[in-house]
């Protein structure tokens, strides 16, 4: 099990996966909006999305856990 964390602070603009989705390393999981730019957040590991910890519209700090992957 591992965690996908936000690389910087910003607004959670879009979550592009659902719990139970199968993802490959490098796939986008969510898109963060920071300083008027959309920042894709991708997973470094392949696996199944076990849990999504944030909602669209949430404010995210650097290092916050976006999703848990298994």
């Amino acid at each position: 099990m591992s965690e996908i964390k936000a690389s910087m602070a910003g607004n959670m603009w879009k979550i592009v996966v659902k719990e139970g989705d199968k993802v490959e390393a490098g796939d986008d999981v969510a898109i963060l909006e920071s300083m008027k730019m959309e920042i894709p957040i991708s997973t470094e590991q392949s696996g199944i999305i076990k849990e999504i910890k944030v909602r669209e519209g949430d404010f995210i700090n650097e290092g916050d856990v976006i999703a848990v992957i298994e």
Partner: protein
Amino acid sequence: MIKKILIANRGEIAARIIRTCKKMAIATVAIYSEADEFAPYVKMADEGYLIGPPRVNESYMNMEKIIQIAKEADVCAIHPGYGLLSENSEFARKCKEANIIFIGPSANIIEKMGDKITARKLMKPAGVPVIPGTEGAVKTVAEAKEAVKHIGYPVMLKASAGGGGVGLQTVSNEEELEKTFENNSKRAESLFGDGSMFIEKQLENARHIEVQVLADEHGNTVHLFERECSIQRRNQKVIEEAPATILSEKTRNLMGEVSVKAVKELGYTNAGTIEFLVDSEEQFYFLEMNTRIQVEHPITEEITGIDLIEQQINIASGKILDMNQSDIIHNGHAIEARIYAEDPKNFFPSPGKITQYEEPVEKYIRIESSVRNESNVTPFYDPMISKLIVTGESREEAILRLKEALGNYKIEGIKTNIPMLIRVVNHEQFKSGNTPTNFVQNFLADKKV
């Protein structure tokens, strides 16, 4: 007479506007979000009002609240700066209804110029050359394919309602068109509530050159020459200069004349900028019109000696322009570099606390900044933290000074694009003035910063 102005903006442009107001003995009101409580511009203003939480929709874009504060503070006028509500026709209309002068053109013209398709339709009969492209909004892939048959690849896809680089993409063949059209259209729909796209011919090796205009409410219109803004990343400007090196005096004057004529025909008032793409044969084509003060306005001020904010305020007060075209001359060369809080390699934002901040100081350096030592650069707003403007008698001198000034900035705690700016300024292609709008992109692909 305008005696008191509310600045419906933040950061360096709010500070810049307050400075001119002070010079003109006009009282100033700043608004600030919770994230900007300690920002330098708030201290500079005579009065400051907290407007709301950090996010722009709850603060700087909250029209009702801004107008309510303007009434409470009893201001005569609102200066919208750039970005935020500056090109929002609804806001301009609401100001008028509240009997507050909106420092800018009429709501009607903001609305027309804000829609790229309408703007293009109006520019053509006003004698401004437009880039070959679709006459109306394109809604489906099939329509897009048909349109490109007449235009020819490569084409540029644009969201009809977009701006600021979102929704802009180059497409080189039919396969790419299918993919990008749907993606971008969906994205535009969710971002702007309008998924219609606009397609135009992608010009090869084009330059971005824009003309500054001023028009009063009595039919007097002048241009203040051009700015060259081809150094861009993510379709946003990074370095701008005036005058443009590639233009012959003949084309320079022609672009100015065409712009003045268009502004007159449109019935446009206040300061505005007509953006053009210019090809290697000095053919120029209308890109869009910005109905507000531009980020890069200082370079025009430096070469003409005219305070554009002062002109905006005077025009909004109903005064007659105090200059004729023949009074306006350009002297020397000015270059602006935008300092962004971002990673110089991939342009990703770099919010955080500035632990050390020192600016270069020389008589030929002008700095417009939104930060100082210990400032917190928040993720809520644009990443631009400082503008460096240098002047010189020649372009060569301005470049040397720019290089030195960039090296003398000390910004610690966050990443900035300064290393990338230094690489650009040292590049032979930049020195020779041969930089089409894809310069940064090609240069980075060629050699990582």
